[in-house]
């Protein structure tokens, strides 16, 4: 799986200068990115708050339909990288851009 992540990192576009809410996921449609994101979701303790089945606990449910900070790829990316009020930490100093996009892929693959 680590190999997957590395391979994906290499094909990703050069470090994105500025992600906006409209930025598309560079891994859009790539199942292996979602699988790499699944591993990262556990590794970075996302599951500790959002649960291994993504239905929430300490943090909100990630499988439901309507989100305060939006459910588009760029919006989810920003929620992870910058953090959000009332509990979501900022992960931009702990995860690479590609890792965050892979987690975005995983979350999007699990939304109903």
């Amino acid at each position, binding site marked *: 799986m680590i190999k997957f992540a590395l391979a994906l990192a290499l094909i990703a576009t050069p470090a994105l200068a500025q992600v906006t809410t409209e930025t598309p996921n560079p891994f859009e449609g790539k199942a292996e990115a979602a699988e790499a994101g699944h591993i990262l979701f*556990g590794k*970075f*303790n996302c*599951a*500790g708050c959002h*649960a291994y*089945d993504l239905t929430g606990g*300490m943090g909100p449910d990630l499988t439901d339909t309507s989100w305060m900070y939006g459910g588009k790829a760029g919006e989810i990316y920003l929620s992870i990288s910058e953090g959000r009020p*009332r509990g979501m*930490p900022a992960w931009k100093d702990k995860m690479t851009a590609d890792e965050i996009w892979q987690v975005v892929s995983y979350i999007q693959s699990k939304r109903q």
Partner: protein
Amino acid sequence: MRKSVLAVLLLCGAALPAMSASAPADKPEPKGAAGSFTGATANMAPNDPAGQWTRQARDYANTRYSPLAQINKSNVGRLRVAWTFSDGQMYGHEGAPLVVGDTMYLVTPYPNIAYALDLSKPGAPIKWVYQPNPDPRAIGEACCDKVLRGWAYADGKLIYNLLDDHTVAVDANSGKEVWRVLLDDVSKGPTLTQAAFVVGDRVYIGSSGGELGTNGWFQALDVKDGHTIWKAFTNGPDAGALIGDDFKPFYSWMKGKDLGVSSWPGEMWKQGASAPWGWVSYDPDLNLVYYGTSNPGPRTPSQRPGLNLWSSALFARDANTGHAKWAYQLTPHDEWDYDGINENVLIEIPWKGARRKVLVHFDRNGFGYTIDRATGEVLVAEPFGHQNWASKIDLTTGMPVVNDAAHPAVEKKVENICPPDIGVKNWNPSAFSPRTGLLYAGVFNSCMDLTNHIVQYIPGSPYDGMEMVRHAGPGGNWGEFIAWDPVKGKRVWSIKENLYVWSGAVVTGSDLVFYGTMDGWFRAADARTGKVLWSQKLGSGITAAPITFTGPDKRQYVAVYTGVGGGAGVLRREKGFMPGGNTLYVFSVDGAGIGSGTTQLVSHAEAAAPVSVPPAAAHN
């Protein structure tokens, strides 16, 4: 596994019809209607006036016993709402109101707003409000909702913890802040949810954060200004844990130097949690404080081989110096998240022809312990509900005998481990009656299918690794309310409930025991038989402890906060789980008292002549 399940079922008499009390055939017989089942008694120091409720458990011993008897078996059926108070906060409500003089004190969950209500005036109006404005980053660090389990009154101050690691003292008359001290760094994971506990000029505080890779601690602050008098880390070198020459654990495997370091791999003790987030009790004769510690971190046990001392353990410490006198690890190398933080109720029991000073502790691991509180010797350890992780506690070693099938595995599902992480009982405090000699507790009946994952320590994020599916235990009911004989280690009666019984209990001088359910029923049962004498459906589930007090009008009231939440939220998808809430309900016989009647309003006549009444409008 199945055999032990059946054995426990038989032992506990768990398969009982819903909402009916049952007694096993070998139940002890009380010596007449007023007699005690066990001969157990308690020191009710500091012997507050009968109608007051000035600390969470009413006394140092944590009995939650009230001698009041105006509400009794003959009139309890007439209990009605006298008045209510909603505080507007939607996180789980876990604390009990305090009544000091003519004032009631309430504190909400985060953002931890305090209210003083004037019980001498109609409708119990707000006397003052105090808003501490805690740091909102704390919201993301509290594992199990943004709760507060109680507050303390001492020296004219209301003293309590803020979720963001501050402890505050508020002037009880004016609502002005007297002092505020910062005890930890919330950005790293620790929070404060514990009920501050006061003895004399000291307030005892324990940290929270068992799932956040914290370094748990317990400390004594000065009631006057909040400065730290002593602080004991749970894990790490003996010096920091205040373990010295006077530390004498009863069992040999807990003796040795710096076991809080050597029972962990490398320096993992630094993130080993073991946070003392539960109740504190105090013995004024021995001058010892008692409390328990949380699960070790991370929750995945294969990452931390060793006993992981002093996680999931009980401590007895000198109240003045903090020096540990004894400790007892309830669940060595805890593999299931069985925190040892539940209340320790200090009582005296007849034991082999003599009186013994003991503590009774219903542990999350499912065993009800009766322990000599001077020495740490376990006298009784019997299951008080359904469990299958251990066949017994070996009383010669103090060690549990763990069933092979109960060990979890990484990336592999292990089915039907009982209880799950939340235990056979959680922090919800029990009550003890010196009249019946029994303890009364809300308990859980459930199991889990557990899959573990390897986790890494990232400060401020969960250090966890347990993925589980919980299901109801034998009989299909999630909860029960039980009466327990602490001498024999047996149930005396039990009441089946649909969901976990996660409320505290209070028992009275008229042998009534009150508790609440997560599906919103507040009940009074006969403390001798378990017969339910009164129930009232309320607006939300109950996860707080009831109290009873005498108002300025000399009337006895019973009060309980509704507002289901906290750890009880693990059942939020079960049928019957109610939405959150934040209403304090106060009951009296016939609902009489300061909250109703016609006397509050004065009608002014505005016209001399009678006003004519227009005819009712016709409907088209």
